[in-house]
């Protein structure tokens, strides 16, 4: 039983990280209807910048929030320079451009920081020692990540649901032309979407780097799991991204342990199987809304 609980906790920890990056994917999808393959690498790059700030003697939280702020600007700039000019282009073009974003940040990180893995510290103030709760070891960092994930989800949910800016961003994504006609500056809203998404991605990178180790490809696998999470939960739903992330985390953790032939090697395959299964049964995802319109 303790073995099982231990696995559930590990799954929740992994799932929280997938959920964080999935939130970023959902944000971009909601604001521009684009699936950004470069999301993980942008997160990786901001994490490296935080590492540089730490090396330069910044306190942990200074570097943490500094990296998030830079992430926001990075999102705005990437949208302005790369995405805005190809608005309305065929989907394939946009996919290729986001793959370009992936390659760009991956290469730049490799060029600046080399491929040698770096140690990234856990957040200042979070205990390193695990808590022993009735024989089950609870890692404080995991609890922190989980809490951050829930907080971010609630903030984003409230932002989109209850604020005028959130409403305007949703409207710009859903029907840009109509949004323009009510006086919304649509390109600005889309840029904001990219900025906020990059912030969420930065949080994912900063919190997962201590678990995984910081190297230029460390977000690649996480991105795939995040795609699985967002697909599972529904690409237009922040709540779905989080629930999807947790389910994917649990399925990989428990599947890897209890389904003999899978082990740790085939966990990634489980994520793919999950994507395919969901797309077959419920293409809009668990929390996504299928598009139905009367004309």
């Amino acid at each position, binding site marked *: 039983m303790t073995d099982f609980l231990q696995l559930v906790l590990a799954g929740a920890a992994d799932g929280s990280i997938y959920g964080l990056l999935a939130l970023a994917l959902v944000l971009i999808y909601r604001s521009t209807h684009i699936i950004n393959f470069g999301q993980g690498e942008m997160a990786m790059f901001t994490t490296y910048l935080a590492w540089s700030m730490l090396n330069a003697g910044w306190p942990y939280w200074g570097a943490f929030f500094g990296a998030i702020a830079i992430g926001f600007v990075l999102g705005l700039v990437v949208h302005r320079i790369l995405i805005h000019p190809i608005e309305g282009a065929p989907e394939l073009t946009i996919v290729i451009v986001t793959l370009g974003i992936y390659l760009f940040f991956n290469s730049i990180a490799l060029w600046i920081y080399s491929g040698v893995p770096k140690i990234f510290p856990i957040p200042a103030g979070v205990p390193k020692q695990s808590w022993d709760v009735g024989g089950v070891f609870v890692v404080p960092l995991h609890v922190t990540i989980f809490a951050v994930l829930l907080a971010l989800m609630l903030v984003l949910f409230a932002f989109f649901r209850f604020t*005028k800016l959130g*409403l*305007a961003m*949703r*409207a710009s994504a*859903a*029907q840009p*032309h*109509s*949004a*323009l*006609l*009510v*006086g*919304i*500056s649509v390109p600005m809203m889309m840029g904001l979407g990219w900025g906020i998404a990059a912030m969420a991605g930065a949080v994912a990178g900063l919190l997962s780097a201590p678990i995984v180790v910081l190297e230029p490809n460390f977000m690649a696998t996480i991105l795939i799991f995040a795609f699985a999470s967002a697909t599972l939960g529904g690409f237009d739903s922040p709540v779905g991204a989080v629930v999807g992330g947790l389910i994917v985390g649990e399925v990989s953790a428990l599947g890897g342990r209890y389904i003999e032939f899978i082990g740790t090697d085939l966990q990634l395959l489980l994520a793919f199987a999950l994507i395919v299964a969901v797309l077959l049964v419920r293409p809009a995802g668990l929390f996504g*809304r299928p*598009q*139905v*319109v*009367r*004309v």
Partner: protein
Amino acid sequence: MTNILEAKGLCAAYGPRQVIWGIDFAVPEGGIVAMLGANGAGKTTTLRAIMGELRAWGSLTFRGQSLLGRSTADIVKLGVAMVPEGRGTFVDFTVEENLLLGAYTRRDKDGIRQDIQRMYEYFPVLGQRRNQRAGSMSGGEQQMLAIARALMARPRLLLLDEPSLGLAPLIVQEIFQILETINREDGVSMLLVEQDAVRALRLASYAYLLETGRVALQGSAAELQASEDVRRAYLGY
């Protein structure tokens, strides 16, 4: 009477393709003007040029201020709103959210609340469905929502692109009656683009007939209704 909107030698183009070739027209303060013409005559293009969505040149003034070169958001703030062809309601949003979006350029929270109530009085069906998704409503209800949404910006000039398109005659009649009320009670000027020329000429006091991007004919609604040519070519009786 002063004109709220005045175009002189207005030209407009989609990218390199010029569609409007120097047209003159005006909408008097508090008046309703119709713009008629066949498909492809440039009616929708003219409206989009007014909203700053296209490259346009010549002269175009709203209450004495030039609209050319301004962003759509600016033009909405100045007091021009458009009900686009195909309505352009936010289908995945509730009726109330649509109205709030219509008031996006405004900052007066109390005024917005009052105006939403006023829209529910003009269009009671919207009040009954305030929390319903716009996309789940009938075409007529969505058209009413589109008009209400445009009015939420408190425009002085309302541009309407084919409000009767695809709707049952009874619904069209209801919508045109409400437009007349809004024009009379709130003094909102209107520029109406319509295929249904008979109905448009009944609502408008003056009309322009566009042909391949130029004004082919203009006159008071009564004159155009009486004109043999117009009747045969455009009114179809």
